[in-house]
């Protein structure tokens, strides 16, 4: 059975979390993610779940720590400044190898910034956000449909790898309303967690403090062995007109949809442009970029930031091709015409 609904991106994340078996949501209000918490406040009581508006973002992420240690699927959400407040908690979750789903509906920054959409938290998300050696898995949906499906995927990945999965989205996708098909036929709503404090006959201790340096070093090495598996198995990307692309546009989330329009216009002018859209931002789809660089003369990174993802693009292709930046910031989205102009500029590059 599938059903169609007209739904906001923020609401879609909330519905998907409930479908995935999440019964514990802890949040704190901030625009532009408010619909997510508001929706949870209505829905959770109806499914015997917990909606709790914490006293702060710091409290909410630590409630996630507790709920996750107890073995339940749990989620928190916020927007840029609130995610900064959660940074300490993200590091502790990583240090304890706890699964969690954290949503960032990005807004303009730095500081209080604005309530308009942005993609300027890319570094913060893909580099983990807090202190210490760790990663979080980052998913970047680009439609309301994907806000739904990626949230379900996020819970599965979080449990499989015992790590935080972040849905990194923005005010456009959070606020916009699109029709969505909801199909929950093949859903796992929970997984075995023998490590949880509520499980097992002996004591399961969840802790990120190590009294001996050797033990802490080993825990870091083990964790990075896990990250290596994630990097091998989980990178996701989507290509559009990529097979013969000489100019490859790299873009994720909301701006990737605008970029697609510009690529159609470029094709209309006889330029072989294509889109390589990272769906996972960490792990970054490095192999797909390396492959695209075999044919491409140049890349254009389209992002609503001063140039953050562009560094991962350059690393992935080992700087073998020029990478141009096409960006708007402060809550402004790039127009297709601006992206087209960057594609035309990139088209002047000769193959190296």
């Amino acid at each position, binding site marked *: 059975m599938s059903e*169609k*609904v*007209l*739904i*906001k991106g923020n*609401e879609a994340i909330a*519905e998907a979390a409930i479908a995935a078996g999440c019964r514990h949501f802890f949040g704190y209000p901030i*625009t*532009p993610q408010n*619909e997510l918490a*508001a*929706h949870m406040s*209505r*829905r959770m009581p109806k499914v015997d779940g917990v909606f709790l508006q914490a006293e702060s973002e710091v409290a909410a992420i630590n409630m996630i720590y507790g709920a996750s240690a107890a073995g339940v699927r749990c989620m928190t959400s916020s927007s840029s400044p609130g995610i900064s407040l959660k940074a300490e908690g993200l590091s502790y979750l990583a240090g304890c190898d706890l699964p969690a789903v954290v949503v960032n509906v990005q807004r*303009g920054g730095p500081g209080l910034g*604005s*309530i*308009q959409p942005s993609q300027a938290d890319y570094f913060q998300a893909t580099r983990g956000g807090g202190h210490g050696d760790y990663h979080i898995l980052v998913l970047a949906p680009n439609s309301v449909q994907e806000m739904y499906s990626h949230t379900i995927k996020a819970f599965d990945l979080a449990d499989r790898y015992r790590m935080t999965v972040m849905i990194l989205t923005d*005010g*456009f996708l959070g*606020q*916009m*309303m*699109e*029709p969505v098909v909801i199909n929950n036929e093949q859903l796992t709503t929970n997984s075995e967690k023998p490590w949880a404090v509520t499980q097992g006959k002996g004591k399961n201790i969840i802790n990120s403090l190590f009294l001996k340096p050797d033990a802490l070093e080993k825990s870091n090495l083990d964790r990075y062995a896990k990250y290596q598996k994630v990097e091998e198995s989980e990178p996701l990307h989507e290509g559009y007109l990529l097979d013969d692309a000489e100019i490859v546009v790299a873009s994720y989330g*909301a701006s990737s*949809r*605008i970029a697609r*329009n510009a690529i159609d216009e470029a094709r209309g002018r006889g330029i072989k442009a294509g889109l390589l859209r990272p769906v996972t931002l960490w792990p970054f789809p490095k192999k797909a970029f390396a492959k695209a660089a075999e044919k491409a003369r140049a890349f254009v990174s389209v992002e609503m930031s001063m140039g953050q993802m562009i560094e991962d693009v350059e690393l992935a292709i080992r700087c073998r091709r020029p990478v141009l930046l096409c960006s708007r910031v402060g*809550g402004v*989205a790039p*127009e*297709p015409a601006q992206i087209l102009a960057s594609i035309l500029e990139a088209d002047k590059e000769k193959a190296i």
Partner: protein
Amino acid sequence: MPPARITVLAGHYGSGKTQIATYLALERRKHSPRVTLCDLDIVNPYFRTIDNRELLENAGVRLISSDLAGSNVESPGFPPEAASVFDDESVTAVIDVGGDDRGALALGRYSEQLKLESEILLVINKYRPLSSGAKDTCVICREIEAAGRFRFTGIVNNSNLGAWTTAEDVLASLPYAAEIGETLGLPVVAISAARRLEEPLRETVKPLWLMELYRKWVSL
């Protein structure tokens, strides 16, 4: 029967109030020289009537909206000129209210004036997740009425799935709207749909309000 001097649109969050309000203001302007669209949304900082300012003003509709709407300042600001639509009886007004009971709070201060010469329409959409059942929609309706201290006078059935909406989707929503109308004792005053659905719907669905999609944010 001519429309009431003041028409208020309220309803569940995301049910299409701003879209219908914009449509109605443009329609009213075809028959009245002085039409005002008043934005009383204190809930949502996005998707405001101000996004359509040019369209409205070119059509000769006056827009009353908070100076903060559409800015980076998120404040539930009230436009000071709002009271004029109640005081100036030569004006035909359409009032766009924020979603749910929280949005309807804004109407409370005008509840006495609203009793006199207004129709207050409940906008419903069967395809929104929290209002997909008639019973849930009736609960939302009662919460809105309690917060705004008014009673609805009619229903606009705006059931749609955005760009995916088919004539069948609209037709499938008719029993839902009828059930809500029956439960609440309210007439369904119109069914609203995208203009592209005129052909398959015009014979069977009446009265039918055919609309353009007025709001568009970015070229996604």
